[in-house]
């Protein structure tokens, strides 16, 4: 269980964490979703006792991350955002090294990493620096797990990893969760949010919203339209000028238009675009994605400032 209360961190004038409070339940898979520079890494480094907070408190399974940092390190597994195992040691040597410094052996906790490690075991004599991105992540996760931690903290584990490996990685996290391990994972990919039990949207050091992915989508307060068009750029320019438009964003070949609740219908938007000379367009109401929620909250926060 992770409890964060009014956590504050500042680098000079830049506020990295602005009074962040958060609770992650035991055995929960919790996602921190936000763009680069949002404060995800700072929060994780404070939890891992690699960084001292300027204010507030944080506990991991009732252990204070500042006072009891030694005990905290024993019950947590950490995977930094950057690959940080020894590139000149082999897969097996890396794993053995981390098992040894934690005073355990590979055999003792093998059951925990078996599913993951088996996939890279054929390459156990290869230097870690020569592994592909996906395999590196699997090795790093194995090394973070080898001392049987109660809490796992993973900083953008899927960044720079191919789509298939990403999917596999999330499957692994779900299995670890089922073994009762509390997992805090950060990602810049909004589509990965739905894999988490609960998520926090973080932007500029502030938590904008904390809820289950489902709740977050359900509680989307405005109208959302999916607009199919051939001329993405022109259409979005026109839509931006439509009264009560809150945002227009392209999702691949589809535009997501957000308008204030209850102002427009599909027909009224169609009519508006027809007047602007846009003919081949289909509009339908759509349900929000996490990204829509994020953009809406982000704009909302901008207006507040």
């Amino acid at each position, binding site marked *: 269980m992770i409890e964060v209360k009014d956590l504050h961190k500042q680098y000079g004038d830049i506020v990295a964490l602005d009074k962040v409070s958060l609770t992650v339940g035991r055995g929960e898979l919790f996602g921190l979703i936000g763009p680069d520079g949002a404060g995800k890494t700072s929060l994780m480094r404070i939890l*891992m*006792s*690699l960084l001292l907070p300027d204010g507030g408190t944080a506990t991991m399974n009732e252990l204070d991350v500042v006072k009891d940092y*030694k005990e905290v*390190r*024993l019950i*947590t597994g*950490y995977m*930094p955002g*950057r*690959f*940080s*195992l*020894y*590139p*000149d*040691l082999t897969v097996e*040597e890396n794993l*053995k*090294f*981390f098992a*040894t*410094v*934690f*005073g355990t052996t590979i055999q003792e906790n093998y059951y925990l990493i078996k599913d993951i490690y088996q996939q890279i075991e054929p390459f156990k004599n290869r230097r870690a620096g020569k592994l592909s991105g996906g395999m590196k992540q699997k090795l790093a996760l194995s*090394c973070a797990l080898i001392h049987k931690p109660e809490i796992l903290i993973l900083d953008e584990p899927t960044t720079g990893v191919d789509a298939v490996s990403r999917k596999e990685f999330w499957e692994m996290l779900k299995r670890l969760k089922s073994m009762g391990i509390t997992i805090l994972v950060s990602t810049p990919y909004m589509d990965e949010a739905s894999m988490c039990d609960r998520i926090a949207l973080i932007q500029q050091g502030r938590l904008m919203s904390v809820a289950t992915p489902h709740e977050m989508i359900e509680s989307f307060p405005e109208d959302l339209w999916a607009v199919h068009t051939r001329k993405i750029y022109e259409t979005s320019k026109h839509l931006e000028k439509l009264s009560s438009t809150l945002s227009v964003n392209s999702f691949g070949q589809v535009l997501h238009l957000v308008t204030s609740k209850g102002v427009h219908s599909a027909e009224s938007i169609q009519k508006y675009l027809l007047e602007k000379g846009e003919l081949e367009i289909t509009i339908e109401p759509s349900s929000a994605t996490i990204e829509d929620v994020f953009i809406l909250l982000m704009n909302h926060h901008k207006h507040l400032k």
Partner: protein
Amino acid sequence: MRTLYYILQKEFTQIFRNKSMLPVIFVMPLIQMLILVFAATNELRQVDLAIVDFDHSYSSRQMVAGITGNPFFKVRNNLTNSQEAEDLLMRNKIDLALIIPRHFDKDLNVNKSAEVQVLVDAINGNAAQLSFGYLSSIIGSYSQKVLINPLKPEYRQNKNIEIKPTYWFNPQLNYKFYMAPGILVVLITVVGMLLGGMNLVREKELGTIEQINVTPLKKWQFIAGKLLPFLVIGLFDLAFGLLVASLAFNIPIRGSLLLLFGLASVYLVLVLSWGLFISTISDTQQQATFVAFFSLIVFIMMSGLFTPVESMPDWAQKLDYINPLYYFVKIMRSVLLKGSNFTDIFNEFAALSAFAVSIFGLAIFRYRKTS
């Protein structure tokens, strides 16, 4: 204990997997000993000397013959005027010019006193003094010979004191005996500071230190893992360099080897700690190399390796009290050439130990702060 053992195993594995490490360990001692010891010499040989003889007398020819017969000088004596000699000096063709005036013979025999002029290129002051001293001693001994000429009994009563020097510890004044121990010091200093120092900062660069810091690994275990392998490599290089020196130059090993290696261990701990300290204040290997290199040059130049500390200004000599190389160069020379025992060099040992302990402490303190 198991952890420490495994950490050392890991460090050694990494060291020997590093492709540039083996050449550094084996080739560097060879190159340093075989090239530097020869190159870093203060001995003069083949000094270019021009002689302008205006007198062409029996006496002048006798004196010139004494000079030409000396292997130390490469003589040109086909010059006809002093202008030519000055030109040669200007164009760096000669180092010295000896000008014997007309009436040299007459002055010597009639007036009992004659003068010659010596022009010295003093760009390199040290060499100028040496070669001038050598030339004047030849001329001096010639004048002795003239003065006590048995055919001229009236000068026989002339008394003079002859100095018969005995050079202790290095009877042939073999310059290599003096240089080789110093070069050995440079060798293990470079190994310790560059290899040892780079090691920790590399973990920073790779980001592996982040992963290490979240483990329950103890500070002393981690630091020991960084120090011990390079201590072993440094001692190995010292042994290797000493072997090369004794095979190639026949350098004497008069003191106890056990004492020498014991002191070298203290010195290496000091140097390695210094390297580690540099590592803790640097973020990249490039920064660390630069700082290490800068401090190395200052330490080496001031150590008395190439120039005697006694001829440095007073403040520089005082500054040398905090130069670890100064002490270790002294220890190395005393133990190898003089056969000094532990009591003889206790002061140097005490200074080195004090430095080793304080810099080691500083490195650990800094490492703690950065983690």
